């Protein structure tokens, strides 16, 4: 379907697609097998200016919005969701600065993000704070000119690989959610270290680690936004990042569909290519229908957000749920179309199926998303 991209948007798609084709696809199986972070691919992306896509022009970026990020992530995910996740987590990590940061903070961090010289990560989740973000135990106490942070973040994407971390910590635990603030912690700050790298089911090219803050001292000006506004910033961040996760589902679904159709045309059983059998055709048709519907919803949502619409939480959650559920279904069906070969590591679809699962879990489980949608509906119909 033609989504009438501008010339610049088409360039972004082409560039991301070329990165996927030239740099990601040739090595994705190896990265997956070795649990290896794609440092050199991220450098290639930086050279191609992809990190600048969502950074405002005044800070050296290309000034794109949510839609441009979605376009990049979709293409990267067609190559490998693990690699694409590393890119997405970088954006997620710097969104708090873009949303609530001071001019000085923006000037200090954004040019490095745009050029890909430094990468970011987002530190919210803790052992006791998953879906329930109010369970954050990490604290930040002002001591003279420095904040002192204590606590441990769990399952942080890009942990140990990024240089810039947006950390959610309680500055006033008694106030609950309204006592949370966001801080920038940098790699190398005193008292800041990483836990072991997690061994995951899928997206194994992405790095997931604990962030450990033990009397971690950072300058006073690392507070992002006003004290106590942390959760508001987190919610705004997640509202604009969820379409990105949804687009990973779209890219992954497309990749799985591509593999399934190509295979079905080549594979001969009973003297005919299996695509000539209606049972297979119907599976492929359903995959294509769901994929295109998800893409349409994701694109529409991203454009809605870029149009500065007021209410974004509901649609943002809707596209995340729909596209990630679609990706799970489509990758599972792709494995089915490929049959025994699909189950083997030799073919890329088993990895796609493993990668798909995380999309239903991270950045808010699909159950939490449905809660958000339900609550918004309840509010809308209140009057």
């Amino acid at each position, binding site marked *: 379907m033609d989504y009438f991209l501008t*010339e610049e948007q088409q360039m972004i798609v082409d560039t991301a697609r070329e*990165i996927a084709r030239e*740099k990601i696809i040739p090595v994705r199986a190896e990265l997956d097998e070795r649990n290896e972070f794609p440092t050199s691919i991220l450098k290639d992306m930086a*050279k*191609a*200016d992809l990190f*600048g896509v969502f950074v405002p022009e005044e800070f050296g970026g290309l000034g794109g919005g949510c839609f441009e990020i979605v376009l990049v992530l979709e293409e990267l995910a067609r190559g490998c969701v693990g690699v694409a996740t590393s890119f997405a987590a970088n954006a997620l990590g710097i969104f708090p600065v873009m949303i609530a940061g001071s001019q000085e903070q923006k000037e200090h961090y954004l040019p490095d993000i745009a050029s890909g010289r430094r990468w970011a990560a987002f530190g919210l989740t803790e052992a006791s704070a998953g879906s329930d973000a109010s369970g954050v135990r990490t604290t930040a106490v002002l001591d003279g000119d420095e904040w002192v942070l204590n606590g441990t973040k769990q399952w942080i994407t890009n942990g140990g690989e990024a240089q810039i971390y947006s950390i959610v910590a309680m500055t006033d635990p008694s106030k609950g959610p309204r006592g949370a603030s966001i801080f920038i912690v940098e790699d190398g700050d005193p008292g800041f270290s990483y836990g072991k790298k997690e061994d995951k089911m899928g997206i194994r090219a992405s790095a997931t680690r604990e962030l450990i803050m033990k009397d971690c001292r950072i300058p006073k000006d690392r507070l992002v936004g006003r004290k106590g506004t942390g959760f508001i910033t987190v919610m705004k961040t997640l509202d604009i990042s969820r379409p990105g996760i949804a687009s990973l589902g779209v890219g992954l679904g497309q990749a799985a569909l591509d593999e399934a159709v190509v295979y079905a045309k080549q594979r001969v059983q009973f003297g005919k290519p299996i695509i000539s059998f209606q049972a297979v055709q119907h599976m492929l048709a359903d995959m294509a229908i769901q994929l295109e519907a998800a893409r349409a919803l994701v694109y529409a949502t991203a454009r809605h957000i870029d149009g500065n619409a007021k209410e974004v939480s509901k649609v943002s959650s809707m596209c995340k749920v729909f596209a990630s559920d679609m990706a799970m279904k489509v990758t599972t069906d792709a494995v089915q179309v490929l049959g025994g070969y699909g189950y083997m590591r030799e073919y890329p679809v088993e990895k796609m199926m493993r990668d798909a699962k995380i999309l239903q879990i991270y950045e808010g489980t699909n159950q939490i998303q449905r809660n958000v949608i339900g609550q918004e509906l309840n509010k809308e119909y209140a009057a």
Partner: protein
Amino acid sequence: MDIIVCIKQVPDTKDVRLDPETNTLAREGVESIMNPFDRHALEEAVRIKEELGGTVIALSMGPPQAEAVLREAISCGADEGVLVSDRAFAGADTWATSYTLARAVVTLGNFDLILCGKQAIDGDTAQVGPGMASQLKLPYVTCVQKLRTMDETGLVVERMMDDGYDVVRLPLPALLTVVKDINEPRVPSLKGKMRAKKAEIRILHAADIGAEEQCIGLAGSPTKVVSVFTPKPRGNRTVFSGTPAEQVEQLFAQLRDIL
């Protein structure tokens, strides 16, 4: 360091198929691309520029539509694109091409280094690089697999040989042809693509480079194509049929004597 990179637009020959019915080339869907070896030459030039400063000019000889590869070169980091194009160049063999490109280089003026791909995938001759060096009286090294060091006075390179490699020092200005091992080319950048879109591609015609009429195009080409043909199939052919296992049986029966 001012560098000229020679780039050729070539048909993506791996897409070319022979039509079994007519025994002619099936051209449909064959894309024009930047010669893959030249991509590595360009990447090396851009890396040198990033390290030592200077300019990179992408130079191509071809029909007007070859402009596309020059824009691509700009998106990959070249500063400027120059296209040498004239109906009078048609039919040029490697001699006339070397001459024409050498004239264009002279027209462009100062440079420290010329980089070329080892060969173009449509002709596979590997002659134009050394031919240009001969025309321009430049020291040159072909099949460079690594640039070891470089400064204003000269460079040290590894030249791929059949039995290993030679480490060679040569002064500047010089000409190198490169093999794919030299680097991993980058993907064109977004800002580069935007710059490329707006860039003015300079066109040089035969008169602009002061080319002598008898040295260009068909007239300037010592070689002449007498005939073009597709080879005939070999005799004595057996095509097996049946299931894979049956075909393997039949093959094995035939190969038994050889094995």
